[in-house]
Structures are given as C-alpha cells and as structure tokens.
C-alpha cells in the first residue's frame, strides 16, 4: 500500500513541478503579492502623519494642545510636525501635499470653554489620505473629550462648594491626572502581527488552499485522461491511489508554505515567531486546507468543475479569515473563526506576541479539527473516484 502510494506521489510531484503551476501559485505569486501590497500600502508598514497646528487661541487650552499633546504624538512617532504660521499657510501646505492634516485652534477657544459656551477645533484633512485624516480627527476628538472631562470636574467642584480660588487647581489636577478607567486593547488586537508579517502569512494561508487542490483534481484528471483504469488494473490496493494523491497535495502544501515563510523572512523581514510553533501551524493549516478542498472537490464530476468550486470556497474562506487586511476585535473576529485562515493568523499572532510556540496550540487544534471533519466525508465520497 505505502509503496504504491509513494510511487503515485512521486509521479504526481514530477508532473506538478514540471508544469510549474505549483511553483507559481505556491511560492512566486504569494511572495510577489506580499511585496506588491507592501509597496502599494506603505502606511501599513510605517504610519506617520505630517501635520501642522495653528494656535489662534493663545490661551491655556491651545497651549495644552500645541505644547503638551502634540509633542507627545511627535515623540511617539505618530505625528511629524510641520510649522504653519496661520490657517492660510496650513491650507497651502495641505494643498501642496506637504502635510496630511492641520488642526486649527480658533481664537478665544480657552475663554469660550471657561465661559461654558463651547468651542470648535477645525481639522483640515487631505481626503486622499483617509487613514491620516481618520487619525487627525481622532486626535482632535480625544482632546475635546479631555477638555470636557476637565470642565465637568471644575463644574462639579463649584457646585460642591469648592471656593472659587481653588477651582483652577481642581482644573489643573483633572487635566494632569490619569484616567480612572482605561481600556486595554483586546487580545486579538494585541496579538496582531506587524503588517509585512501579516501580509506574508495571509498570502501563504490564502494560496495553500490552491496548492492542495490537486489532491482531488488529480484523481479526477486520472479518470479524464484515461489512466485511472490502468492504475486500477495494476496490482496495487485501490486505496493507495487516494492516499498517494492526498499525500502529494499535503507535501506540496507544507513545502510551499514553508518556502514562503522562510522567503518572506529573508526577503521582507517578516516575523513568524518561534520556528516550532510556525511548523505546527503550517502542518495544521495544510491539514485543514487538504481536507476542506477534498470535501469541496468531492462534489465535482470533472477536474475543471472541482477547480472552480474549490477556488470559490478558497477565496470566500480567505476573505472571511482576513488574509488581505487585519481583522481587529468584534464581529469580524467572530466571523474569522469559521475560517482556517483566521485561525492560522490568530495562532501566528499569538505566538509572536507571547514569544512561546505553545501559544499556537489552540489555533492549530482548531485547524486540524477543520481538516478532519472535512476529510472524513471527502474520503467516503471520493471512493467512487477510484472505482470503475
């Protein structure tokens, strides 16, 4: 049984490597797409927001923004400050593309806030840089919320009978005290890979579902090209044909994903975490992919039909699993759990965050479960393919 399966596997590998489709879809295309995406979306790699602040207020609130908040953002390498003398200068910088956003702190803002009249921070943005615009608006909203908190603290103190000469101290204390409640990032976000690693892992997970397709399409091709009766007439157990095909698909999947992992690390600096955990995840991913693609392909009558069905499922699961763009917390993360791709990325993120290969085990277990649950009915259904 094993000898015959290995002979069939060897023959198939020779054919697959000869037509170069495995090399193309297993390694070159995913690696190439990772490079292309990293060039198209440079913001994903290193985000920075060139921005200007125009402080027309001149009061304490304007100073809090320009002299306290902004230096913090600059120090955190989120914002690159570009000087602008006034609003016209800021608009000119924005039009020239020298900055992506500008905060205009209006004249009399501090006085208006102190008088309880309210004020408005204007955020000028470049609509072509959506992410930068979103960040700039977020900074302004966060600052406004903080002002509201201080105002509320002062008002509460006044109502509570705190003497008027002490209200400024209350305001100062409220402004400088840390928030009473902080929100910790969710684990899924905490465990997020860096953008290049995420792209590389996402592409690897996405394309391995195409690489392993031939396990089933190979069986159907043997029937279509007339070689199946010859295999069935040979003195080998019929099941060895199925085993040889599945083993070939599995082996190609593991090799192509491993080459991608090593290649993206060497060429792009992607971080896959501890090698042991990565190896476990790759094996589990390929088990899931082989099982699922065999199950989908078992409903086809021809290799072409199988390829089409498998591609639809592979693309759908890839999208659900977030192979192209990171999925944070929330309902999208829940949806990603129905996809082996999502588990693969989650497992990889967990081991990179923890630095411990054991962090991959839950995700690997989920993927193996996917594979086994799909493979059992697939094997039963594909028995008809090795009958005449």
């Amino acid at each position, binding site marked *: 049984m094993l000898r*015959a399966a290995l*002979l069939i596997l060897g023959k198939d590998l*020779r054919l697959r490597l*000869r037509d170069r489709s495995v090399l193309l879809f297993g390694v070159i295309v995913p690696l190439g797409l990772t490079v292309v995406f990293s060039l198209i979306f440079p913001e994903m790699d290193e985000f920075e927001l060139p921005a200007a602040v125009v402080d027309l207020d001149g009061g304490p609130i304007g100073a809090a923004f320009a002299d306290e908040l902004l230096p913090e953002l600059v120090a955190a390498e989120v914002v690159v400050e570009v000087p602008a003398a006034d609003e016209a200068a800021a608009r000119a910088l924005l039009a020239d593309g020298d900055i992506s956003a500008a905060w205009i702190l209006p004249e009399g803002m501090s006085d208006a806030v102190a008088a309880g009249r309210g004020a408005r921070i204007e955020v000028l943005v470049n609509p072509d840089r959506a992410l930068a615009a979103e960040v700039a608006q977020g900074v302004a909203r966060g600052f406004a919320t903080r002002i509201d908190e201080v105002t509320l603290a002062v008002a509460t103190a006044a109502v509570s009978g705190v003497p008027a000469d002490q209200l400024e101290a209350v305001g100062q204390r409220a402004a400088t005290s840390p928030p009473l409640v902080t929100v910790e990032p969710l684990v899924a976000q905490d465990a997020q890979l860096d953008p290049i690693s995420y792209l590389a892992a996402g592409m690897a997970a996405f394309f391995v579902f195409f690489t392993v397709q031939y396990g089933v399409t190979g069986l159907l091709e043997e029937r279509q090209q*007339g070689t199946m009766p*010859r295999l069935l007439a040979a003195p080998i157990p019929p099941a060895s044909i199925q085993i040889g095909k599945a083993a070939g698909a599995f082996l190609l999947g593991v090799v192509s994903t491993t080459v991608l992992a090593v290649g993206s690390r060497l060429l792009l600096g992607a971080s896959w975490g501890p090698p042991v955990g990565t190896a476990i995840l790759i094996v589990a991913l390929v088990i899931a992919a082989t099982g699922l693609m065999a199950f989908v392909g078992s409903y086809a009558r021809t290799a072409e039909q199988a390829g089409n069905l498998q591609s639809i499922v592979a693309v759908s699961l890839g999208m659900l699993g977030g192979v192209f763009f990171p999925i944070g917390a929330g309902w999208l993360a829940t949806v990603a759990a129905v996809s082996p791709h999502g588990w693969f990325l989650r497992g990889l993120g967990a081991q990179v965050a923890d630095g411990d290969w054991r962090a991959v085990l839950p995700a690997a277990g989920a993927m193996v479960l996917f594979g086994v649950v799909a493979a059992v009915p697939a094997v039963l259904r594909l028995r008809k393919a090795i009958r005449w």
Partner: protein
Amino acid sequence: MQADRSAERIGDGRGSDPSAAILICDGLRRAFGAIQAVDGIGFTISPGETYGLLGPNGAGKTTTISMIAGLLRPDDGEITVVGRRMTPNSTRAKAEVGLVPQDLAIYPDLSARENLVFFARLYGLDAARRRERCDEVLRVIGLAERADDRADTFSGGMKRRLNIGIGLLHEPRLLILDEPTVGVDPQSRNAILESVEHLATEGMAVLYTTHYMEEAERLCDRIAIVDEGRIVAEGTRPELVATIGSLDVVRLEVAGDTVRAKAALEAHDEVTSVDTDGTAIVCLLPGAARALPQLLAAVAATEATVTAVEVRVPDLEDVFLHHTGKALRD
C-alpha cells in the same frame, strides 16, 4: 426470420481445456441500474490463444473486460486468472494481466520512457528488470528513438503503440486489448495487429475486443459474437460461418424506396435475414442463384430499381446478422 438468441458453441463447448486455461470466465453478469450490460457470459482462453469478443458498440464487451481486469466486480459469476480469483482487490491475479484500455491511458506530460518506468514500478519490476523491459518494449513498439520525448508530442499512432507497450511491460500471462485500433491510421493499425500476432506466438493469451470483423478474422483463434450482454455464438471462423449453414449472401444496391424494398424481401419465404447498409440491402438465403430472379422481381414490384447485385459466401458480419437479426455496425 427470428434471430437465434441462444449461444451456439462449437467443438467442446468451452473451446479449450479449462485445466490449462489462463482465463476462465463463468456466468458473468453485471447490470448498471436497469440495464443488464453483461448477462451470463462465460469462456476460457488457453496459453498462446487469441480470443476475440466481436460485437457492436454497447454489446457488453468493455464491461466484460473491465470485470476480467479487476476494475469492476461482477454481480454474479466468477473469473479465474492463472488459477487465482479476480476481484478489484486481488493484486496477485492482477499481476498476471496486462490491460490496454480502449481510450489512451498514458501521461501526456511524461516521456515514453517515464510512462513505462512508472507502470513498471507499479507492477513491482526491480531496477535491472525495469531497464531491460523498458528498452525491449520501446524497441517492440518502435519508439526507441523517441523514448525521451514527451508523449504529448507523439502522433496518434505512436500514442496508441505506447498505450499497448505499457500493457506488455510486465510480460503478463493474459493481455487484454480493448479495441486497440480505434482511431488509428492504417499503417499503425497494421503494426498493432502484427504485434498482437507476434505475442500469441510467444505463448501469451490474448483477449481482443473489436467491432471490426476483419481484425477478428485475422487475429483470433476463436471468436465470441457478443450482443446485448450475451455470447450468441462462439468458435473458430470456419465454425462460426458454418453455423449459418449453406446460406448465401445477396447484396442488392437499390435506388428508390429501400424501406419498401426491404419489406418485400423480408416477406420472401427463403430469406432468413435482411438488413440495410446505406442504399444496399443485404439478404441471407439458401440457393441464392436460384432465388435471385424472384428477389429482383419482389424489389421491382415496390417500384424501386436494383442498380447492382453481388452474391458471395458469408463472413463473420453475416454470421452476426444471422444470429442477431442486425448488422455488426449497428
């Protein structure tokens, strides 16, 4: 003018000594849904004997050899190859059989030698034997010069020869050839027929299916005429021809309404079988020379015109017509 539906066997009824037989088939039956593809076929083949299954497309020939090669399990009946019972899982019986399927069964992206080496390994030939047999088969099928070229660069005839070569590779005791000359040019066809003749002289038992009468007549020591899943007659060519007695074949080329002309001939007392072949009507009857004027008059009465007449001795096609009531090409 009813066709004789019972199998007519000549000689010992089995054709060869079962104890020495390479292949024994007994009472094979196989249905696909409501269609009874094979309905009680049985025969034996001895070493060095070429046995033909002759019948039209859909007669049950391919289903029969699929069971003999272990691809299909019979619903009923038994197959023994070199004393071993054949089933889809009997690897020892399969090792004694070489199969040449009707459709090409080669890997187009592999070279001729790679195709042979792969199947030689599947049949368990060791490295030295593999090399020896591959070289020998490449020589026999005339592809030694193109051994390292991919099969998809071959002509149709070369592919057919490679298809046959794979079946010969492990020197099987029984070689099954399923319509190996379909779609082959005359030159390659002749080469294939010569190869089969040569194999039989070397002691190989050959089971040959065809719907070409001339191939069966040229190659086969014994022939089974198969129709609707049954053997309707079996024997050597002379024995089969003798089954239709002293009948002659009259072929009339007719201009006009051939349907009415055929009906008129069928109504003639002495005519045992009638079939049409394009504009021709073929009749079987005893004493054709004597009855010919009456036949011509019967056709003329239908207002059809006979443009040519041929009277000849019967061949296997006529035997088939006699036993089944229809032409082999149907």
